[in-house]
């Protein structure tokens, strides 16, 4: 059995002697007698070697693929070894939220640098230290921007998990959520929705790039706050939400160095215009000076937070996804602007190549709109047949949306040979 304890039996006896007890159970004398009497089964432990073997056996029950064409919120990107090595340093991995700035300057500075990077990518003035996921970042941003008397408006082409999470969070606060139908895959903002806040995604769930400028100005013309959800990798190429006039940008930065890991931990991010700085949910790191005039970093604007404001806090966030934010910062430092653009360009080029070739093979694009690295094909009645044929070749195909449509994703991990094999397999399955 593994135990990770440092106290020997002799030390235990010595410590108990100091306390004047002979049995550990005496330390539990405050527990009501009927609770202490209650018996329940306790299993034996295992050695580290046995534990590894038991868990590795479970890991081996999952299929592994030689290539992956599925995204839909979880993306298979190359993670440089330097990212994994740097973030595994125990100081980063095991420390707590940096409440003691003198011995947390490294973590605080790394978070400050992460915030700076997210501000740059999104074109915003302030970014938070992290949120649980893109879904909760979107939900908390909508709660922040909403007023109770007016609905939050969104579209049925956003990520379905995000849509459900929005529904949960808004319902709890008594805020109405209106979901508009995006007919041809792209959102159109009709006048007169009465929205207090509008949330849309670009690229949206189907990979399509929305008219961020047009949607933003239409919503703002009617007095709504605008929140845009973005895969931050796409922002290496495209105009930022900030540049397009949006109030808040949110999303999931999992593509920046985090493995798919069956859906988490990922990295919700939120960035906003400066007028929101005292309303934002979650931790924020700020720069200041120390008693000797040196630059220093601290958790700041804590009067928004639960440990100070309790029921008046802007959010209940305590633990966030700090280590994931560090991971993203290291990833972006390693790629730099040029590398990030190259990754995004490769994703987009692969996706456009695969879309064109699939279309030639008979799997036509379902939507016409310009896309980033995901797209939807339609093959009447054949979706699961296609993905099953790919599974047999150890390829994780796109995500079947229904019997007819498949949502595909390409990243820089896919080479031409992989894509040609997908096309060949699809052709055979049709």
């Amino acid at each position: 059995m593994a135990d990770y304890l440092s106290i020997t039996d002799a030390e235990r006896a010595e410590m108990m002697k100091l306390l004047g007890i002979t049995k550990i159970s005496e330390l539990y004398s405050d527990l009501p007698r009927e609770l202490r009497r209650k018996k329940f089964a306790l299993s034996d432990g295992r050695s580290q070697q046995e534990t590894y073997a038991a868990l590795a056996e479970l890991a081996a029950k999952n299929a592994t693929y030689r290539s992956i064409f599925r995204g839909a919120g979880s993306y298979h990107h190359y993670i440089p070894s330097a990212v994994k090595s740097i973030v595994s340093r125990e100081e980063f991995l095991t420390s707590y939220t940096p409440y003691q700035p003198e011995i947390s300057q490294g973590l605080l500075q790394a978070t400050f640098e992460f915030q700076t990077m997210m501000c740059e990518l999104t074109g915003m003035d302030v970014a938070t230290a992290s949120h649980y996921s893109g879904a909760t970042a979107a939900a908390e941003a909508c709660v922040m921007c909403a007023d109770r008397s007016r609905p939050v408006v969104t579209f049925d082409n956003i990520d379905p998990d995000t849509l459900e999470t929005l529904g949960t969070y808004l319902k709890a606060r008594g805020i109405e959520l209106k979901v508009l139908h995006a007919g041809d895959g792209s959102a159109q903002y009709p006048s007169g929705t009465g929205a207090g806040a509008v949330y849309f995604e670009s690229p949206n769930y189907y990979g399509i790039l929305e008219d961020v400028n047009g949607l933003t100005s239409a919503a703002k013309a009617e007095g709504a706050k605008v929140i845009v959800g973005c895969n931050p990798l796409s922002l290496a190429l495209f105009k930022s939400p900030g540049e397009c006039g949006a109030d808040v940008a949110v999303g999931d930065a999992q593509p920046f160095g985090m493995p798919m890991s069956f859906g988490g931990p990922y990295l919700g991010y939120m960035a906003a215009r400066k007028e929101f700085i005292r309303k934002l949910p979650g931790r924020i790191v700020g720069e200041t000076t120390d008693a000797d005039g040196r630059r220093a970093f601290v958790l700041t604007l804590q009067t928004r937070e639960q440990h100070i404001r309790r029921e008046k806090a802007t959010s209940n966030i305590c633990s966030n996804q700090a280590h994931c934010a560090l991971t993203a910062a290291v990833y972006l430092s390693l790629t730099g602007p040029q590398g990030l653009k190259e990754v995004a360009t490769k994703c987009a080029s692969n996706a456009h190549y695969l879309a064109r070739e699939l279309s030639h093979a008979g799997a036509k694009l379902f939507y016409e709109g310009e896309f980033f690295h995901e797209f939807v094909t339609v093959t009447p009645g054949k979706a699961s047949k296609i993905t099953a044929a790919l599974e047999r070749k150890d390829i994780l195909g796109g995500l079947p949306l229904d019997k007819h449509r498949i949502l595909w994703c390409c990243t820089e991990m896919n080479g031409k040979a992989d894509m040609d094999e997908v096309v060949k397999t699809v052709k055979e399955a049709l």
Partner: protein
Amino acid sequence: MKTVFEKSVKGRRGVQPSALDVERYDYESYRLREELVLPELSEPEVAAHYTALSKRTFGVDDGFYPLGSCTMKYNPKLHEEIAALPGFANAHPLARADKVQGCLAVIDTLSAYLAGITGMDGVTLQPCAGAHGEYTALLMVRAYHRSRGDEKRTKVLIPDSAHGTNPASAVMAGFEVVTLRSAPDGSVDLDDLKAKAGEDTAALMLTNPSTLGLFEKNVLEIAGIVHGAGALMYYDGANLNAIMGVVRPGDMGFDLVHLNLHKTFSAPHGGGGPGSGPVCCKAELTPFLPDPQIVRTEKGFRFGRGDWSVGRVSAFYGNFGVYVKALAYIVALGGKGLREAAETAVLNANYLREKISYFYPVGDRRCMHEFVLSMRRLRDETGVTAADVAKGLIDRGIHPPTMYFPLIVEDALMFEPTETASKEMLDAAADALKEIIALAYSDPDALRSAPHTTPVRRPDEAAAARNPVVKG
């Protein structure tokens, strides 16, 4: 130290992606951004930058870390290796269920263990942190009452000693907060509870052991009062480390609990996250658990949805990578090891308390896994504050305890040594504290100006908040 942006040199490259082997796709120019400013560094420079930052950060392996309420125990290296196994790390959350049976087995097995440890029936692992678990559980409380046509239960009772997340979560879940007064020993004031529990009460949120590190002796009576009023008992699992394998919240009368896998079950805190805040509940609350749920069938595991579910609270299934680590911990320790860990945590806390309790203890009872000292008298006699003492500990290689919490104790310092601390660490901490207290009387300025061994000293937090600089 320069920021990563200040170290940037135009044209320098780190990791480069492999070249395109299809035709490059170019978007129409109106879509494109003009400029992207990110650091430009070589890989060696990036490694050096972050290594330097890591050396300015204090982790669990760097020394004693008795941060109260945070359970800073050792994080086994084994768990990192297991979570990184390709079978887990490369599992796509939307792969067909029959292709990810190993992941579903992790979720199912861990859920069963947690139900056993807490004495509950149903479990969701989806919440990503403790506060997220509180929020999820409170949504379930609301859905439960509503399902019985009981719409008037709009209030949640929360002791004044509770973590700030409790009231913040209650408001996010649509409740009003009613604060309960604590008795002087930090336990629930039963008269106040009786006066406030009524037909508008949805639940009581209770941390047990309390934030003073004391077991709530009257917990069964409290449960009787709360249930008698038709409300539910909610257990904040922040302090489960004291009692896991010893007693179960389910046996104390609680209906729902949230746990912190990143505290109690040894997943690393990561500088503030990712955590994981599973919710466990009694059978009558399982219909309200978030979607999706794992369903065990003859053909293996699959996902299911509930008609009465509160809905989804995050993307996919929560922080899966954290579950793997917690499961490895429970498998390795077993029920006996968990119990031994709890007992050792309580022993370590009592030992340290005994060695320093001549100095301003709060209460005279034995503690559970943590205890609180009040620096009020020290402040009155020397002008040295709890924060000054904390900074003095930093100079002696010790991470400070939690300061100024719980709010019901003036000038509080809250120590939680955890079971993985060695006796030498406890002895050294007692000596350090003794030395600091003596110094407070002989040379208070030495403490008021501490720490003296760190790269910065007493950053001006007020200035940071007054004039926020939040990006470089």
